[in-house]
């Protein structure tokens, strides 16, 4: 039986420092929910509060209707996967996986097939009698994963489970985790600092910074419509270009850039004055008309070429050009840059988004 998780105004203090500073989240039953943020943003602290390894200083956390603030970790009905695997080094693979079942007093005839099935699901049934020191990092993480879900926990918690693996294995494991989670339908809370991983794996993401939630949403929402500059910069790459909003009426304004380029933008509210425009490199393109610039560096990256373009004011922006591999531009080439208006975000200041 999988739970929904309600986190209400939760605070964790270390002295005067608020590691988690009033976070509220509603995580739906069966959802794959990711806490994403740079190191020190409080995501792991929050996960450990949910797990029961960090005390909750203020606020409440509910699993379903059950308030779990004062329930010790071993009674919270969770499964947890750790960054450094935490496979018990003195037990074989199958003993590791059976460990939680034994703690639940599940008899041997029932235990053995469940362990085997779990090992099959993570494709290491052939390693069941090995000791952990004879396993690779990826195999150890599979053991840890099997051990966490074999007990059919109400909530599965994962603390950067893939960050110690190499890039290729990380992608493989991430799709395995996602498939397993969908099959089991278990509510999963996943912590990572890797935005690509978060986008790939999650139903919803909470982006965190300095102990606070900056934005909660589906991956494509977060990518397309970052609610503030922090999210815009943290998720993917963004160019920031200063501009000015003029002639605003009926929630439509004219965006004027320093070089005089103008475009009409739909707004959330009427506003005139200085703004910041965030636009991703893939939504910029070279055209006959646009902001003039000079190529400073061209980097060939396989399916696209990344150009660093210097604007007249001295600012350097990134432009990705797809599909034009036969003709890579040279350093010093003069270009004109335009952006796809529906994919830009306009901010009043670093906190408030203006564009819809």
């Amino acid at each position, binding site marked *: 039986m999988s739970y929904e998780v309600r986190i209400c105004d939760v605070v964790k203090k270390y002295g005067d420092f608020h590691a988690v500073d009033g976070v509220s989240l509603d995580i739906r039953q069966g959802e794959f929910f990711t806490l994403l943020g740079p190191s020190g943003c409080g995501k792991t602290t929050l996960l450990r509060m949910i797990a*029961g390894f960090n005390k909750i200083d203020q606020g409440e956390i509910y699993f379903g209707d059950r308030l779990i603030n004062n329930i010790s*970790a*071993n*009674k919270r009905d969770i499964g*947890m996967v750790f960054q450094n695997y*935490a496979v018990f*080094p003195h037990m074989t693979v199958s003993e590791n996986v059976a460990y*939680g079942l034994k*703690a639940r007093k599940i008899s041997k005839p029932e235990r053995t097939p469940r362990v085997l099935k779990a090992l099959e699901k993570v494709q290491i049934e052939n390693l069941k009698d090995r000791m952990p020191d004879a396993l690779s990092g990826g195999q150890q993480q599979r053991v840890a994963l099997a051990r966490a879900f074999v007990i059919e926990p109400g909530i599965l918690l994962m603390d950067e489970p893939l960050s110690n693996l190499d890039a290729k294995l990380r992608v493989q494991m991430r799709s395995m985790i996602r498939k397993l989670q969908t099959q089991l339908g278990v509510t999963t809370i996943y912590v990572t600092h890797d935005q690509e991983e978060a986008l790939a794996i999650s139903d919803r993401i909470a982006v965190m910074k300095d102990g606070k939630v900056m934005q909660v949403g589906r991956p494509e929402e977060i990518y397309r419509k970052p609610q503030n500059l922090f999210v815009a910069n943290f998720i993917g790459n963004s160019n920031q270009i200063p501009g000015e909003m003029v002639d605003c009426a009926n929630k439509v304004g004219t965006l004027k850039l320093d070089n005089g380029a103008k475009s009409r933008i739909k707004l959330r509210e009427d506003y005139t004055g200085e703004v910041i425009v965030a636009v991703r490199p893939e939504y910029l393109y070279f055209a006959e008309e646009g902001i003039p610039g000079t190529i400073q560096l061209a980097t060939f990256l396989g399916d696209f070429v990344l150009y660093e373009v210097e604007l007249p004011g001295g600012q350097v922006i990134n432009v990705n050009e797809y599909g034009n591999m036969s003709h890579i531009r040279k350093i010093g080439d003069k270009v004109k840059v335009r952006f796809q208006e529906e994919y830009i975000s306009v901010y009043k200041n670093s906190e408030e988004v203006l564009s819809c």
Partner: protein
Amino acid sequence: MLSKFRYRFLNFWTISTLVLLAFFALALIYPLGSLFLNSFKDGENGFTLQNYITFFTKKYYYTALGHSLSIGIISTLISTGCGVALAYVMHRYNVVLKGALKILFIICLMSPPFIGAYSWILLLGRNGFITGILGKIGIQMPTIYGKTGIVLVFSLSLSCYVFRYVTAALQGIDRSLEEAAESLGASKMRRLFTISLPVVFPAISSVMVIVFMRSLADFGTPLLIGEGYKTMPVLIYNAYLSEMGGDAKMAGAVSVVTVLISLGILLLQKAYIARRNYKMSGLRPPLEVKLTGWKRALVSIPCMIWVFVALLPQIAIIVMSFIRTNGPIFVGGFTLNNYREAIENCGSSIGHSFLYATIAIVFIVIFGIITAYVSVRRRKQGGTLLDTLVMFPYVIPGAVIGICYIVSFNHRPILICGTAIVIVLAYVIRKLPNTVRSSVGVLESIDPSLEEASISLGVPAMKTFFVITARLMLSGVAAGAVLSWISCMNELSSTMLLYSSTTMTMPIAVYTYVCRGNYGIAAALGTIMTISILAALCLVARLTRKTGGII
């Protein structure tokens, strides 16, 4: 509300911490406090500084302080110099029979200094074996009794400590450091004195402090070979004897001065290394230099001579235990009589030593693991306090522990003097620091998330500790525990004050028979001790083979 209270406060660790704190309050703070207070008492229980004034004005007392300091400093310098040189040479060059020499060093390390003292008397004393031979060809040896003998015994046995510590530190140097120095144009000698030695100097300074404190605290050696050359522990013992039945006021004052000196030296060294904690990866230790011909002999022979001299007392004792004796005179001819008499007369003290050391080690391991856990994983919940308390006996000489137990536990409500309990208690308090340090080392290498994984799988914290953490710590801790067991078997300085006719131990028996001039039985007992220690060391070797080697 109750469940909240239980969740936050009432768990296994809080209770263990409280129990251990109570134990230290009773077995350490209370006795030391009593002794400290006693040293400020006059005849009518009023406050006075008279005992300290006496100490610093009467020649009898302050010369002993001078003796202790001069022996401490000289022995520390000699043993450090030799120990570092030997460790460096053994670590860096292909010394002949290196493996065997290393094992022999460890054996020297494990044998108590007073056995060495006794054996040097047998060899170089007035009726000594070597003295006799040299006397026949007309060579007069300088006397072994007094300061010379004490310094000789300390330098030899303590250099083995230095050797062991410095060897471990040298293994931590990464080859790249020296390669970097070389690539910058430093010659071999320059490299040694500007890179290799300075980076291990924090370790050298730590072992110097240990060596100094040991030579300050050792009791058996000056008692046996000192012959009137009094040091502080001897003074404590004598003061106590003359105050028999009294409050140990003067003995208390001498003890307090001794403890303060140890503490002062330790704090100085801590302040010195505070900013010199070099972290080195030591992933690629330096390669052994392969020497050939006379160069190889040049580095090998001094090592062999040193090991031979350091081991000579052990060999001498074993050989002499089989020689027919008449009192202090070895009359020649082989016999097993000494062993027969030793077992007939001292069977019970052999039994006591094994029994007390074994009981003590059980407590030491349990307390050591729990203390280590609390001080590593629960710093804020009493861990730091416990860690400080447990290390305190480190600076307290055994004789001082003995005195303060006599002062505190010889009257109601705690009347345990003269029983085995007080001896075991002294062993536990004195040897706990070593086990705690080695347990802390093992525990720090165990990832806390292993425990969290177990808890998250539904196993309560306390059971997790026993199934996961303690289980993983055990092999490393066990090796350290065997070493502590050995030093309980060797313990002389506090037992000397605490034993009664029914609780005599092997080292006490050896000491008694040496004093009575019955050298044969003493040699047999000394051999039994050595064999027990060797057997225990073999056990350590077996235990550490799996865990990567503690020695």
